[in-house]
C-alpha cells in the first residue's frame, strides 16, 4: 500500500512562502513525476513528503493515516538521493543492509534480502566493495538497492539521474521503469528533465513557483496543456508561440504550435522564412527559422534529412487542427 495525500499543505522558510496551499493525491502504485524548472519547489515538496522538512500548515496522510508529525524514519518511505548519499565507510553489502539493521531485523533475514536485492540490481559481484570503488551507475544501483530492501510504502527519487552521463541516464531510466513494473510500488520521482517525466510517469505534476500548474498523464499534458507554461515546458523542442496578427486570425492573443506539427513544403507554404541553423539528427532535422514575421525564431521538425541550408528560403504549412489557442491570461482555450 502506498497512497499519499497532501491537504492544504504549505511551506515557508522564514517569511518566504515557497509552497502556497497545495492539494495532491498520489494513488497506490502510481509512478508520479514532479517536474518543473529549478527552484520550482519540487524537491521541497518531496522532502515534505519524506519528513525531512516540517510542513508549515496542512496535513500529509499516508495510507489514510495522518503522518504530518511522524519522523522520517517511521513513515515507511524510502528515498534515493541526487548524490546517492551512500555511506562511504561501509561496504555495498552494509549500505544495503543498513535500513534493515536499523529495523532490528535478524541477520539471516537481512542476508537473504540483501542477496536478493543485489541479484536484481546486478550488484552481486560488488557486495564487498566500498562505494568509492564503484562507477556512477553502480552507485546509483546501490542507492536503489538500499531503498528496495525495506519494501517501503513508496519510493521517493530526488533527481536520481542528474549525476550520470547521457548514455547511462537512458539505461537507468529503463531500469527504474522496469523496477516499477515489477514491484508495483508507489514511486514519486523529482526531475527537471521533461523527457524523463514523459517517458517514465503514469502521472506528471508540473510545478512552478510552488504552485501546481497541471496534473495529468504524459499525453494529456502533451495534447491539452492547461496554460502557456505547461505548453512550453512539456515537449521537445519547445512549442512555438505566436502573437499578434497571426493569433488574431484565430481570435485570440497567443497561439502555440509544436515544431512537429508544421510541415515543410516545396513552395507556396502558408508561412515562409529563411533557415538559420539546421540541426541534422539523421532521423529528424530541426530548422530554426527567421524572418517569418510570426516570431523571432520558429522551430520546425522535418522527418528525415531535408537538404535545406543556412540562408535558404523555407516554405511551411501549419496543421490547423494542432494549433493551441491561449487567452490573455495564458490559459488554453479548449
Amino acid at each position, binding site marked *: 500500500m502506498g497512497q499519499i495525500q497532501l491537504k492544504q499543505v504549505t511551506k515557508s522558510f522564514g517569511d518566504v512562502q515557497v509552497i502556497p496551499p497545495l492539494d495532491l493525491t498520489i494513488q497506490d502504485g502510481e509512478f508520479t513525476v514532479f517536474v518543473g524548472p529549478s527552484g520550482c519547489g519540487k524537491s521541497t515538496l518531496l522532502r515534505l513528503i519524506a519528513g525531512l522538512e516540517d510542513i508549515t500548515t496542512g496535513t500529509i496522510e499516508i495510507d489514510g493515516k495522518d503522518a504530518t508529525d511522524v519522523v522520517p524514519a517511521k513513515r515507511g518511505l524510502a528515498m534515493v*538521493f*541526487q548524490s546517492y548519499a551512500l555511506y562511504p565507510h561501509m561496504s555495498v553489502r552494509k549500505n544495503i543492509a*543498513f535500513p534493515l539493521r536499523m529495523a532490528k531485523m535478524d541477520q539471516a533475514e537481512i542476508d537473504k534480502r540483501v542477496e536478493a536485492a543485489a541479484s536484481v540490481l546486478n550488484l552481486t559481484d560488488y557486495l564487498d566493495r566500498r562505494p568509492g570503488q564503484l562507477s556512477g551507475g553502480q552507485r546509483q544501483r546501490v542507492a536503489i538497492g538500499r531503498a528496495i530492501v525495506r519494501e517501503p510504502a513508496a519510493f521517493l527519487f530526488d533527481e536520481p539521474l542528474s549525476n550520470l552521463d547521457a548514455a547511462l541516464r537512458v539505461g537507468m531510466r529503463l531500469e527504474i521503469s522496469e523496477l516499477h513494473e515489477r514491484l508495483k510500488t508507489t514511486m514519486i520521482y523529482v526531475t527537471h528533465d521533461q523527457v524523463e517525466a514523459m517517458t517514465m510517469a503514469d502521472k506528471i505534476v508540473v510545478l512552478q513557483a510552488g504552485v501546481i500548474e497541471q496534473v495529468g498523464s504524459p499525453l494529456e499534458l502533451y495534447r491539452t496543456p492547461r496554460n502557456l507554461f505547461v505548453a512550453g515546458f512539456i515537449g521537445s523542442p519547445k512549442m512555438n508561440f505566436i502573437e499578434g496578427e497571426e493569433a488574431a486570425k484565430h481570435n485570440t492573443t497567443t497561439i502555440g504550435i509544436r515544431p512537429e506539427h508544421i510541415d515543410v513544403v516545396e513552395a507556396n507554404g502558408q508561412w515562409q522564412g529563411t533557415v538559420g541553423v539546421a540541426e541534422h539528427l539523421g532521423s529528424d532535422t530541426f530548422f530554426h527559422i527567421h524572418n517569418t514575421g510570426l516570431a523571432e525564431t520558429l522551430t520546425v521538425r522535418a522527418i528525415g534529412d531535408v537538404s535545406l541550408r543556412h540562408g535558404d528560403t523555407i516554405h511551411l504549412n501549419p496543421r490547423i487542427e494542432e494549433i493551441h489557442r491561449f487567452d490573455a491570461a495564458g490559459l488554453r482555450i479548449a
Partner: protein
Amino acid sequence: MARAISPRRKLITTAAAWTIALIIFFPIFWTILTSFKTEAQAINDPPLFFNFDWTLENYSVVQERSDYMRFLWNSVIIAGGSTLLGILIAVPAAWSMAFVPSRRTKDILLWMLSTKMLPAVGVLYPISLLFVEFNLLDTRIGLVVVLMLINLPIIVWMLYTYFREIPGEILEAARMDGATLKEEILYVLTPMAIPGIASTVLLNFILAWNEAFWTLNLTAANAAPLTAFIASYSSPEGLFFAKLSAASTMAIAPILILGWFSQKQLVRGLTFGAVK
C-alpha cells in the same frame, strides 16, 4: 598540468630550500646534539659537531634531579584531559551548528571565537582568585578545565569545518533508513568524521602541551607540566648547557613527532577554516 622544469633549476631550488630549512631547524638540531655531550664538550671552542663521546648521562641526571617523569605525566594528563573533555563537549555542539544551522549559528560561532581572543593577562587575577577559592591552584584538574576552555572555540571550529564537508544528504539518508538521532551520530556521522576528529585532537593536544601562560601562573610543584619544568632552567647554575639541552629535547620530542603528523590540519585549525 605542471610543466617540465629544467633539471638545473630544480637543483638550484633544492639547494636553496635545503639551506634555509637547515638554518631554521638548526637550533633544534643543536639542542638535540648538545644533549648527548658532556658539559665540558657542550661549551668547547670550537663547537663540536660529531667528534665527541656520545653520552646519555644528561638524561639520567635530569630525571634524577628534577623528576622529569612527573612533569611529563602532568603534561600528558593536562593536555590529554583538556583535549578529550573539549572534544566531548564540542562534538554535539559542532554537529548542531553544521547540520541544523539556524540564523544565529554564525553569530554563535564568531562569538565563541571572540572568547579565544580575550587576553589572558586581563583575567589573570580573577582566575587565580577563583582557583584559590575552589582549591584548584596547582592541581591538574584546574588546568585541565582552563586549557579546555581556552581551546574549546578552536575545537568547535575545527570540528564544524570538518562536519560541514560531510554531505547533509547522507545524514538524511540515515534518517530515511530509520536511524534514530543516536544511531545517526553513532553509525554514520562519527565513522565519517573520524579523520577530522583525529586531527582536531592532535592539534589541540599540541596547543595544550605548549600552553605557557596559565601553566606557568597556576602551578607550583604538584601539577606543573613540562613548560614550567623548563622555565625552572631560566636561572643558570654552573655548567648546564648539556642538561638544559637534554631537558629541552625531552620536552619537545613527543610533540615534534605528533606535530609533523598534523601539518595539514594545522593550517585549517589555526585559521578557523579560512585557509584550506
